[in-house]
């Protein structure tokens, strides 16, 4: 199991397009990927668009993300890259 804390840096936050990218990426891995806001116990399935949108993670939100499964290292690296790269949105 890998646990990471990541900050949403892009201006629009985890809005529909960014959420879609995250879900698409997460779904490529076998591992379970669970997200929660740092101050909340509610855990969201990273492969569920409805869940990810429900996180309502705006700019600056800190997320705890847990990866668990055979390809957890690859999954963690890929997700980290996506978020750090501001979902390819530039801002």
């Amino acid at each position, binding site marked *: 199991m890998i646990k990471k804390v990541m900050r949403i840096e892009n201006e629009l*936050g985890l*809005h*529909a*397009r960014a*959420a*879609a990218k995250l*879900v*698409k990426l997460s*779904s490529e891995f076998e591992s379970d990927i669970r997200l929660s806001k740092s101050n909340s116990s509610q855990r969201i*399935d990273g*492969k*569920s*668009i*409805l*869940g990810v*949108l*429900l996180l*309502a993670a*705006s700019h600056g939100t800190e997320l705890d993300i847990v990866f668990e499964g055979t390809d957890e290292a690859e999954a963690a690296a890929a997700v980290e890259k996506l978020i750090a790269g501001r979902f390819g949105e530039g801002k």
Partner: protein
Amino acid sequence: MGRKRPDWKEFKGQGLSAGMATGHAFRMETISSGIFRIRIDESEVESEIERFRKAVSDSHKSCLKDKARLEKAVGRELSYIIDAHLMMLEDPNFLGEIEKRIIDKLTSPEQAVREVADELLQAYAELEDDYFKDRVSDFEDVVERLISGLLQLNIEHPVKDIDKDIILVGQSLKLSQLASVPFDHIRALVLEKVGNTSHVAIIARSYGVPLVAGIENMRNLIHSGDYLYVDGDAGIVRISPNHEFTDIDADVSSVSKVGLDSIASDRESCVTLDGREIKILGNTEIVSEVGAVLGLGAEGVGLFRTEYLYLKKGSLDISEEEQFQVYRDFAESLEGKVGIIRTLDLSFGELKGGEFLAGDEGAVLGLRGIRLSLSRPEMFRTQVRAILRASKFGDLRVVLPMISGLEEFLEAKKIITDVAASLAPGETGSSPVKLGVLLEVPSAVMVLQSLAREADFFSLGTNDLIQYTLAAGRLNDEVSYLYNPLHPAVLSLLRKVADTLRESGKEVVVCGEMASDETYSKILVGMGFQCLSVAPLAIPRLKESLRLTRFEDLQVKVKEMMSIENPPEIREYASRAFSAKEN
């Protein structure tokens, strides 16, 4: 009626269609595109899961098509919105939870989608961030698409699996949805939101199906499978959750089939104590029921509606031959008595699934009735030709709905005359078909004298006349309190109709709801109307009540009532002077 068992729960609503029935509740839900049921049977789980998966994949495909279209229209930049929709349709948690409910709780796929979606929507509604809150609309889109998809796969009969007699329980039914309800299997209707003059109520009455409406919070009270006793006269529904109704079953079995066949036939004419004959006709739209309607004592069919033909098909395009068959069967079943056929009385919106084109008014103040017919002369000619040909087989007459003035009537009359001239001599009856005006628009009443010179006879549609006169929609909960048959303006219009047509010697058939009401019918008779056309089941009671009256007394009372100006006092006078006991 029967002994009341202690474990019964009794609820009081409004009885909108008379009769009593017992049976198992069948809950259904309605959305814009159709009706669906709430529960499924254990044996259906596999096929229902399959239907659900097919609907998901169909929705996914149609979503992809929309995406391509959107990309073409606005470019790639925005198509991510549809990507989100597509991903919702792939969302493992969402789909998984729905399937779980279908399997574990025997919930219908439509209902399962609705329930899971509602929970999620609730969660979204609680968010503080407006952007994420607004994702609700995207999700609603997906849900609607999915449910429509499910209904598509069941389109023939959304509730077709009804093969035993049930009591249909739900919120409301749209006109278009009624066409897919298998009425032969419905013992009674219990609906939350329908009015006394709604189409559902009117049709329920003409089918003789008891209807109780307006029980608050019903969705939480009645569940599929509950055993119900429905009394459409008293407006009562009793629930026996334990299905222990056996002795009431025996009690009610004789009346539970207050079908059209089981009421004592009363073919004697209806004459008041002082010798005035009142002709009583029946309203129906079902050819196979005409025999029963006559059996109940109708001296003909005063209103044969034709909307059903079109609604069943969901199209205005019905061939002449298809219509001819129906009208001929109707003519032949009349046993030589008169049958008045009303030409199509629909708005375009009602045909297209009840979604009105331009708001509420589209239905009542828009393109409907004769206006729709005149705007589509080919369609109108087809209907007229079919009726004229059928008139060879019985005493048929034609009445035109929504006529607002002389010009409209003359235009329609010309088309009908032309159609008649185009028919070969042997193709139609020996005498020309009588043509009437359905008086329901106040302006037509105001110019009644000129119409009376042109029309052969008149029908009086009180429901619409009242709502147009008072500018108060009878189906609109907020203003329906204004819908008052005893409003002085309404009474004076009715009086004008009776007086004008007596002078011009033209027959008039009153065929709105007023005619079947015990109090109002006496007022109509007192005004001078001599022909009432009512819901078939009301006929025996109506005859009985009018036979106990004296026409001269009613005349005097109506005159006295009409000298009162204040509506509450008018109501009070009417309920006193025309009640069942007072004649």
